[in-house]
């Protein structure tokens, strides 16, 4: 069984609850053990950096230090948490002076960090460590005919220039194809959803959300698949406000990629937090169930 030091992040305990339950269900059925890091703290999202840079890195380093003790890879399902952990970890590796400052603070909590963990996003763990072939073998209910817009968002792609193709990545599409679904091509799959601007500059964020929704709808997507609780909230919970603001009529379901994986793996929707959305996904369930019936006929 593959084991990981799991960092759920604050959002997965509140607005992103269905991400949490579906991530754990899917991990279990794929033989992935997500061991929650003990007494973790908030990573700060985008709000620490405007106040104090060293504090921002230290708060993330505290979680990394706890993961290091286990010797397991650090895994985050939230792209913002992932980005903060990834940056902090790489700076710890190459900047001895920064590491010294951080470790001086961590000492007060009996911790020490070296930057030796590997920082991973949950999506990447399923795709690279479990592998598409093994996932394919476990698909019990192919999502046939479902047109999914893979929404990478920003922070999952941005930490590095040396990694995969950040301009036109394809791995999310690969996963969706494996689930039997039809990933759509659209230009804004890596365009930012606005993030915390939804609080600090509502007008700008709603417009950014509108552009994403419009692009997905123009390309006949049935659903948008997300990899981050912030993207999910902006695209789904604020969809009604986009409609009020711009006079649009969007009603496109938004789901976590883990919920879609769960459906394909045959996990009952209720255990994936499905149908708790603000924009109903009932139409999708019908498609998923239809394909299931066809298959059993």
């Amino acid at each position, binding site marked *: 069984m593959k084991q990981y030091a799991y960092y759920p992040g604050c959002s997965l305990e509140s607005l992103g609850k269905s991400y949490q339950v579906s991530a754990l269900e899917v991990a279990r059925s794929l033989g992935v053990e997500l061991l929650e890091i003990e007494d973790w703290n*908030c990573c700060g999202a985008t709000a620490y950096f405007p106040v104090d840079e060293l504090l921002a890195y230290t708060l993330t380093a505290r979680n990394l230090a706890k993961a290091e003790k286990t010797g397991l890879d650090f895994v985050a399902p939230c792209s913002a948490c992932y980005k903060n952990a990834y940056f902090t970890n790489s700076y710890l590796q190459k900047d001895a002076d920064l590491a010294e400052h951080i470790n001086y603070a961590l000492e007060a909590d009996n911790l020490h960090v070296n930057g030796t963990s590997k920082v991973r996003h949950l999506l990447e763990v399923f795709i690279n460590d479990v592998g598409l072939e093994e996932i394919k073998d476990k698909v019990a209910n192919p999502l046939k005919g479902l047109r999914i817009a893979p929404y990478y968002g920003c922070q999952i792609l941005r930490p590095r220039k040396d990694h995969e193709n950040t301009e036109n990545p394809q791995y999310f599409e690969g996963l969706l194809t494996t689930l039997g679904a039809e990933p759509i091509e659209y230009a804004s799959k890596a365009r930012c959803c606005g993030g915390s601007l939804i609080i600090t500059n509502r007008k700008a964020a709603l417009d950014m959300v509108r552009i994403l929704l419009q692009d997905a709808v123009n390309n006949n997507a049935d659903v948008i698949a997300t990899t981050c609780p912030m993207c999910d909230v902006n695209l789904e919970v604020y969809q009604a406000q986009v409609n009020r603001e711009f006079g649009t009529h969007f009603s496109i379901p938004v789901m976590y990629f883990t919920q879609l994986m769960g459906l394909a793996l045959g996990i009952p929707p209720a255990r994936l937090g499905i149908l708790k959305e603000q924009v109903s996904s009932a139409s999708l369930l019908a498609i998923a169930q239809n394909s299931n019936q066809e298959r059993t006929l």
Partner: protein
Amino acid sequence: MVDELSFSYEISNLMYATHGEPITNCLQCGTCSGTCPAVEFMDHTPRQIIGMIRADLKDEVLASNTYWTCASCYHCTVRCPAEIDIADMMYALKRYSMWKGSYQENLIGPDFSEAFVKMIVNSGRSFEPLLAAAYLPRFSARDIIQEGLMATGLVFSGKMPLLPKKIKGLKRFQQMVKRIIPIGETS
């Protein structure tokens, strides 16, 4: 006698951890401005802001909403041909304007960041409903009603907890924070 630090040097010093190229390497090509998804809501494009820093236009930069409109998506950073970490520079400008206490009055960003950090220092975790309470006074009555309706819906669907969580090792956590910033008696 030591010369006064140039503005662009001050900003570079605020980017302690990131190892991007110095902003003086900027070619003024505008790739950042063309990439930015929030650019139309900014007083100045990212390219202009960099030009203004280099021209020592400190007051004009401090009066701009540009960096507070940055969503930190890092798209400019990964595309910059001069390898300047522009998104991080925007953070540095946010820090600079907060330290100087000089920013446009109607901005929510500075208050939001401060409220967020206070909450973390007090509990170790972030909690959306409390944050909402901190920033709602800045919105119009219509916004508040809409926000309230949305929050109610979220509580009913079980997505919003009613009480915030605290980490267990809060005392030691706060001692750790104190080694970096003087948090005084956190209340």
